[in-house]
């Protein structure tokens, strides 16, 4: 006759049998025989197999969202390593003051590339251009990226992918991508102001990251128009 203690131990071994976790073939055969002959252990076997199957069949696997994958890849590529702080308070890019200053300086040194598709100039764009200083807006946006208020929506080092992303996001102007020597693309984001969308590109070299906003220049447009 089986003692309660033995039965309890055997019951747990039935679980191991169901999971194919008994390496000893003799013990495996013994537990299998018991799980067929002893009513209690037979029930244990039934419960363990039923639940294992039910969980496996009913719990769908949730893939990691692509936006999260992109964000993580972008953070890794830009070398962002947060200190031990709560997740919600982390900035997207953590820079030391000198790096921040260098990055801001790069903004003004970097080429701003723009082109408008053929056709009439959108009057709304002209209003926007006259109303705001785009340079100031770019500075604010870069600060927003550093403060994690504006996170990169796509991580990619491929200019065509970023161009397609801008197109899909509904940017009203065509974009010509230029990457200075020694720099690579890491990602992009589209912001919106007064209903108008603006593209922003983030690049990196070995030491710094920089941010380029895609600016629309009225005089180029006029030249094209004429």
């Amino acid at each position, binding site marked *: 006759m089986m003692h309660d203690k033995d039965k309890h131990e055997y*019951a*747990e*071994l*039935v*679980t*191991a049998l169901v*999971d194919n*976790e008994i390496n000893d073939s003799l013990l495996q055969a013994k537990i299998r025989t018991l799980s067929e002959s002893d009513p209690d252990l037979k*029930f244990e076997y*039934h*419960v*363990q197999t*039923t*639940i*294992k*199957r*039910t*969980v*496996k*069949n*009913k*719990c*769908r*696997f*949730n*893939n*990691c*969202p692509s936006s*999260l*994958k992109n*964000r*993580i*890849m972008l*953070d*890794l*590529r*830009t*070398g*962002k*390593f*947060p*200190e031990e702080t*709560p*997740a*919600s308070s982390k900035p997207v*890019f*953590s*820079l*030391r003051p000198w*790096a921040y200053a260098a990055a801001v300086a790069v903004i003004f040194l970097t080429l701003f590339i723009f082109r408008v598709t053929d056709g009439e100039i959108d009057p709304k764009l002209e209003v926007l251009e006259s109303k705001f200083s785009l340079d100031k807006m770019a500075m604010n946006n870069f600060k927003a990226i550093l403060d994690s208020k504006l996170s990169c929506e796509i991580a990619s080092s491929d200019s065509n992918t970023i161009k397609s992303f801008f197109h899909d996001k509904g940017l009203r102007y065509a974009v010509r991508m230029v990457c200075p020597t020694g720099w690579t693309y890491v990602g992009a984001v589209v912001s919106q102001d007064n209903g108008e969308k603006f593209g922003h590109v983030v690049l*990196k070299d*070995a*030491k*710094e*990251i920089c941010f380029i906003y895609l600016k629309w220049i009225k005089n180029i447009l006029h030249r094209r128009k004429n």
Partner: protein
Amino acid sequence: MTKNYNGDLYADFEREAVPHMDALFNFALRMTGDSDEANDLVQDTYMRAFRFFDKFEKGTNCKAWLFRIMKNTYINSYRKKTKEPERFDYEDVENYYENVKPSSTEDAHLEREIFDNLLDDQVASAISSLPEDFRTVVILADIEGFTYEEIAEFIDCPVGTVRSRLHRARKMLYAKLYDYAGSKGYVKN
């Protein structure tokens, strides 16, 4: 930047760790029960993993290593915020369990059909209601497909404890799901 960019390290990390992102997200979602929390947990885990990637022993199980980092991150930052599920009285489960044993093989087949008819959400909800230690082993064994040894490494306890927790967790789930089935009229309570 706070750390020098290292292309080789990044390439190794991308090859070893990034392919496990889906599995980690799935586990994070099951543990936190909230997609925003799961997003933050996965991101924190990967950032920490990259920081300590030079400590990772090549050729060992990277997936288990990542899960261990996630577990520590979860314990340190997220568990406090997550509402603990109701306490289970395991003795009640045992008593309940004794009363619902099918009396014949035919009943057991019928019962299998009943469990097959349960909705995915009902099963997910039953798993969420398990105490954390038990929920962890069910997710790792039955959804993620880890071996007892891997789970033991991950939760830092002996293999026997994994087996025991899994055994009890499935019994708890059985009682819970049987209850659901009863409330839906699939079985007579």
